[in-house]
């Protein structure tokens, strides 16, 4: 039984580090991207992704683009948004169209347990996909 694979998109190395450790601690397999371009490349290249965790403000674009591409290829997979602001801001309607609400949003700074809870809600069960 292979673990869930989760794409973490954040330009801050330490954020990718934290998310990676939390995900591994939960038994999942993280994949990382530091830019929007890298994220799109990973989404296109990989055959399976079960969850996207993306920051909103990326050096070369906006998280909504990653989410949109991700949703196009893996329509059934969940998405979580990390933001240093308090809301989905100006992209709220676009996110809603992709099935992402303010409940799927983690405001920085968030606690590790908050991240764990959010991931658990998107990826039920400890193991990988059936």
């Amino acid at each position, binding site marked *: 039984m292979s673990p869930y694979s989760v794409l973490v998109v954040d330009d801050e190395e330490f954020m990718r580090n*934290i998310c990676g450790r939390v995900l591994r601690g939960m038994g999942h397999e993280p994949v990382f991207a530091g830019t929007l371009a890298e994220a799109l490349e990973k989404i296109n290249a990989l055959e399976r992704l079960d969850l996207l965790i993306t920051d909103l403000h990326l050096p070369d674009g906006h998280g909504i683009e990653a989410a949109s591409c991700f949703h196009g290829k893996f329509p059934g997979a969940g998405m979580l948004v990390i933001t*240093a*602001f*308090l809301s989905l801001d100006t992209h709220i309607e676009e996110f809603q169209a992709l099935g992402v609400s303010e409940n799927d949003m983690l405001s920085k*700074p968030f606690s*590790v347990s908050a991240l764990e809870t959010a991931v658990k809600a998107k990826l039920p069960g400890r193991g990988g996909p059936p």
Partner: protein
Amino acid sequence: MNGNENGKKAGASAKILVVDDELGIRDMLSYELSSHDYGVVTAVNGEDALEKLRGEKFQLVISDVKMPRMDGMEMLEAIKKLDPDVEVIMSTGFGTIETAVSAMKKGAYDFVQKPFNIDEILVLIEKALEKNELKILLGVYETSKAVLASLKLDELLPIMARLSVQILKGDDASIMLMGQEDCLKVAASSGLSDDEAERKKACLALGERVAGIVARDQVPAIINGPLEDDPRFSGIKSLCSICSSIVYPLILDGKLLGVLNVNRTRRLEAFTPGDLRHATIFCSQITQAINNAALYRQLENKIREIQEMQSQLLQAEKMAAIGQLSAGIAHEINNPLAGIMGFAEIVLKSDTLSAGQREDIETILRQSKRCGDIVKNLLQFSRRKKGGEKLLRLAPVLDAALQLAGFDLRREEVEVIKSLPPELPDVMGDPAQLEQVFLNLIMNARQALEGKKGGKLRILGSAEGGRAVLRFEDDGCGIPAENLGKVFDPFFTTKEAGKGTGLGLSISWGIIEAHRGTLRVESRAGEGTAFIISLPAAKEASK
């Protein structure tokens, strides 16, 4: 105005009293003057003349100097005492310079010699009447100068009323102004003392009713004798003994501003068309004064409005700049903060930490969270979220905030006096955000009342021109003038470190602004503080 209004000469229709013991002179002057449109009454001697002067108003007396029983000079003195405005021309058949000088000294207008040259007399009469007219006009001019020096109606109208009594020789006068709902209200009166309260009320009531008719028709009226006898005002019972009245509508550009009412109650002589002419001049002054005062008031209101708008605008600009800055800072801080907290939590999961190390890292985590809260508040302030489009009543929102603050208010023994009138309009908004604002203002008031047992917090609602206004007023320590301009600035606080972030009022300000409302402060150190929220009423907001 030179008296030529109706194509007649000055003092036309003026009344002249001719006093002479010689029938021939009386008849001759009567005939000549009547044929020149003057009203002529004759008297045979001084006593007869004085009696006639008491009975009616004359503009001019032409009198012989030498008469039986009462000497002409003696009579002149008595006339001037009785009516200082009446002009007197003395005449004699054997005049000396001395008698002429002495007559002029006693106030005579001029001196003529018999036998009369009638043309000379007519010129003299006209000059005397012109002077008489001029005297009244001068009075009007003087009063208008006084009147235009003040722009406050409550100071001005009593002066106006007093002057109308003086100039028009009435016993009492009142000025009524058009109030709201097109209803005449007495704005000032003169000659009606307070101990005549009943009479005053009656006169004013009468005045109001007659004035109502004059106002409706917009035509001035002289009413002589009992009101019941006047067909124009049939059905109105006179309540006091008014002998004669002038009721004059005050009209500007076709719009009725009010009515001037001058009455004679003790003086028996009736108002004349000449008096009405003077009233015309005087009323134009009153009208102008009322108009000036109204314009001035409008100007004052406009200036106040502009000043308020300007200060709101300045505040809005300042807040927008601070908001933008703080949003940027918040974003920059939140990222590293997420790192600090994340790694601290990860370290805490390790089994190899000593108790001391664990405690230290927990402190790092706690203080980082505190940073996070401050930043979150900042973001909340800077985030220009719309106020929300929910139609809501303010009373339940306020009650919810009061309930949340209830424990603190009771502990500090703060007496809350709440008065929200039923006409307080509903608003469009977000109840949670507004509750946050109310709670913030209530808690600020509580803090201002700290240590003062039995302090009062008044929450007063009102409807003001399409807006719902809530006033939170405490009688606490107040805000010093130098701090008043800073209370809405983020991070401005007078509380000791750690007790307040200085963001409460900034956030409240931002929320009210997002609701298209205003939040302002009034305060005096040592006396108390009032925060005033003004929100557009729902109908306005939903447009």
